[in-house]
C-alpha cells in the first residue's frame, strides 16, 4: 500500500511537467507548420518560416500533442487519487516509438541522399529531417529509466501488482 501511494504521488509532477512541455512544443510546431504549408503552397522561398532549421510539420506535431494529452489525462487521474501508471506508460511507449521512428527515417534519408544519391535529395541536409520530437526525447527517456519498474513489462512486478 505504502509503495503505491508513493508511486502515485511521485508521478504527478512528472506527468504534469512532461505534458506541458509536449503540449507547448506541439502547439508551437502546429502553428509554424501552418505557416510553412502556406509558404510552400505560395512558393515563397524567402519566407521567414523557411529560416527555421528544423522544419515544422503538422502531423509530427500532432503526435507530440497526443502524447502530451495522454500524460495530461494521467495527471488528472492522479489528482482524483487514482492509479495513473497506465497513462505514464502508454505515453512514454508511444513517445519512444515515434522517436525511434523519426531517427530511422533520418537514417534512411541519409542513405537515400548520400548512398543512392537520389534526385529528390539534392538540396537535402540532415537538419531537414530532424523532427522536433527528437529534441524532446530526454523526457520520455527519463520516464523510461526512472519508472522502469512499471514502464517495461515483466520487471519488478511489485509496482504493477500493488494497488
Amino acid at each position: 500500500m505504502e509503495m503505491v501511494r508513493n508511486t502515485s504521488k511521485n508521478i504527478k509532477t512528472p506527468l504534469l511537467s512532461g505534458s506541458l512541455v509536449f503540449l507547448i512544443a506541439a502547439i508551437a510546431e502546429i502553428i509554424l507548420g501552418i505557416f510553412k504549408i502556406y509558404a510552400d503552397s505560395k512558393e515563397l522561398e524567402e519566407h521567414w518560416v523557411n529560416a527555421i532549421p528544423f522544419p515544422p510539420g503538422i502531423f509530427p506535431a500532432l503526435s507530440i500533442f497526443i502524447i502530451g494529452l495522454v500524460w495530461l489525462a494521467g495527471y488528472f487521474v492522479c489528482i482524483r487519487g487514482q492509479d495513473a501508471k497506465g497513462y505514464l506508460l502508454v505515453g512514454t511507449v508511444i513517445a519512444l516509438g515515434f522517436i525511434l521512428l523519426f531517427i530511422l527515417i533520418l537514417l534512411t534519408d541519409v542513405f537515400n541522399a548520400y548512398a543512392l544519391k537520389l534526385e529528390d535529395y539534392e538540396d537535402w541536409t540532415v537538419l531537414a529531417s530532424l523532427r522536433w520530437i527528437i529534441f524532446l526525447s530526454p523526457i520520455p527517456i527519463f520516464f523510461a529509466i526512472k519508472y522502469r519498474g512499471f514502464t517495461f513489462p515483466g520487471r519488478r512486478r511489485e509496482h504493477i501488482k500493488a494497488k
Partner: protein
Amino acid sequence: MAIKTKNVKDISKGSKISINIALAGNPNTGKSTVFNALTGLKQKIGNWPGVTVEKKEGKRRFNNFELSITDLPGTYSLSASSIDEQIARDFIVHDTPEVVVQIVDASNLERNLYLTTMLKELGARVVIALNMMDLLEKDGSSINVQKLSTEIGIPIVPMIANKKIGIDDLENAIESVYQEDQKPMKIRYSKEIEETLLKIQNILVTIPSIPTNFNLRWLAIQILQNNTEIPTLLERWSVKDTNIGELTSFGKEDYEAEIIDSKYDYISKITSKVWKKGETNVTRSDLIDQVVTHKWLGIPIFLLVMWGSFQFVFAVSVPFMELIDMFFGWLAGLLVDNIQIEWLGSLLGDGIVGGLGAVLIFVPPIFTMFFILSILEDSGYLARAAFVMDKLMVKFGLHGHSFIPMLLGFGCNVPAIMSTRSLKDKKDRMITILINPFMSCGARMPVFILFAGLFFGASAGTVIFALYILGIVVAILTAILLRKTFFKGKSAPFIMELPQYHTPKLKSATIAMWDKGKMYLKKAGTIILIGVMFVWFLAAMPFGGVEYGGPDTWLAAVGTFFEPIFRPLGFDWRIVVALIVGFIAKELVIGSLGTIVGGSGSEEGIKSAILADGGFYALNSLSLMVFTLLYVPCAAVVGVMKKETGSWRWTIFSIVYSTVIAWLFAFAVFQIGSLLGFGL
C-alpha cells in the same frame, strides 16, 4: 506410463493406429498454437478471439499412432450461435473424434471449465491442455493441477504452447486417454430434471434411426433445454413427426437456466478448492486499457499508431524500392537492346520485366506492412483498436464487432471477410461483409506508394494515411446507409472480450510476414505474370508497324472505348485499361501501367518513366489513388463474398455500388482540384 508402453508394444509392428483428435476450447486460448506445434503446419495465430473460423486437419506420428488432429474455431459452449461455433460444435458432436483435447486458458479457468462440462456430458474422452501457464504465474495466481485433475477425472497437462512447453506430455496424455475409458463427470441436476431426462431417454431408445453410438443423455439434455437445432437434427435422422412433437414438448426455459446453474455450481465448487487468486486486482493490461480504450484518447491513439505505421513502412522500404527499381530498369533496357528478335526483346523487356518489375518493387513495403500488422495483431493492440472503433460504431446506431474484420482487411480482404463468421447476428454480418472491400488491402498499396511517392514528396506517408482513413469513412457511411435501408433492425448487444497483452515476438512476426508476403510473390509469379503478358500482347497488336503501347494498338482500342466515362476523373485510356485489368488482382493496376508506360525500352525504371510521361500529374494521380482504393474488389474477393453471403444479388450489388462510389469520389477530387487550380 510403463504399462501404456507395454500395451503399445502388443500391437503388431508396422501397422499404425490412427486416432482422431479434436482441438477444442474457448476462443483465443491457443488451440492453433498447439496445433502448429503438433503438426508443423502454419495455421494463422493472432491475439484476439475468432482467428480460426474453419476446421483444419493435420497429422502427426507418435509411437505407433498416427494422430489425425483437427484445429477448430473457438467456442464457449456446444449450443452454437455463430457460424464458426457451429463448425466446431458439428465436428465434436457428429464427427465423434476419439479424443478431444480441450485447450484451457489457465488464467480464465472457471469459464473454460464450462465447456469441459459440456464435452464430458457428450461422452467425449477429454484431455485438458492447461495453456498460458506463464500468464497465470505473472498474475501471481496458481492452480493445483493434480487436485483439479482428480476432481474432474480428466488428465491435465500444463503448457506454454507458444514456447512449445508441454507438447510431449500432451502426446503421452492423449495416448493414455485413448486406451482407457473415462468416467463421466458427476453433475447432479434436480430430481425433477433427472426424472424427465430418464423419460426422454426412454423414448429415444425406442427410435431405431438414431445412431447407436450417439449419447442419449446428451440428446435428452438438449431437448430439455429447448435447443432450437434439435428438431432439425431429429428430422435429419428421419425421426417421425409425432415423435419429434412429443420429445420437444418436454423443453422448458426454466430447465435451461437450472441446467446452466448446476454446471456453474459444480465448477465453482471445484475451482474454489484448486485455484488461488493472486493479490493483483488490477493487472498491467487493465492499466494500459484504461488509456488506449479511453473515451477521448482511444481514437487519437489509434490514428496515431496507424499514421506511425505508414511512416515506418515508407521509411524502411523506400531505399530498397529504389534499388529494385534501378535493377529492373537496367534489366529491361539490357533485354530490349540486346535481343535481336525484336518481338521477343519487347515481350521480355517491356512486358515481363516492365510489368513484373513494377509489381516486385513493392515487395519491401508489402512485407514491412505485413510485419507491422502482425506485431499489432500479436501484441493484443489490434483488438483494442477494434474495440475503440466499434464503440464509435455503436454510437452511430450500428453494431460493434465489425472492426476486427475491417482491420484485417488492411492485409487482405479475403480472410477478413471469412473472419465475419464469428458474428452472431446475420444482418450485422452482411453489413460487415459488404463494407469490407473499402478497407485498403495490401495489393492496393503499390498504387498509393508509387503515385504518392512520385507526386507528393515528403507528405507521401500522410497522403497514404489519408487514403486509408477515407476507406474507413466510406465503410462507416455505407454501414449506416445499409442499416437504414436493407438491414433494418436492432443489432446484437456489444460485448467484447479483450485478450491479454503479449510482448510481440520478433521471430513470429517475421514468420507471419514471410508467410503472407509469400502469397504476394506467388501471385507475382502466376496470375500477374500472365496478366502482364496479356497486356503486353494487346499493347503490341496488331503485328507489324504499330508503335508499342501507342494509340493504334488493340489495347488502345479497348481503353479509348471506355475512356469517355473516365475522362471527368482525369484518366487517359492507359489508366482505364490498367483499372480494368486490375479487377483480376489489384496488383495488376501497377503491373499493366508498368508494361504500358515503363516499357519504352529505355534504361529508366517505372518511376522515371511515369515522371517523364505527360499523362500523369499530381491531381489525376490523386484521383487514380482514390478510385483504386474504392472501386470494385478483386476477383478473389468477389468469390469469397459470394460464398459467405450466399447471394449473387448482394455480390453484384457490392461490385456496382463500390464502382459508382469510387467514380463519384474520384470525380469530386479531380473536379474540385481542377477548380482550385491544381490541374495539369
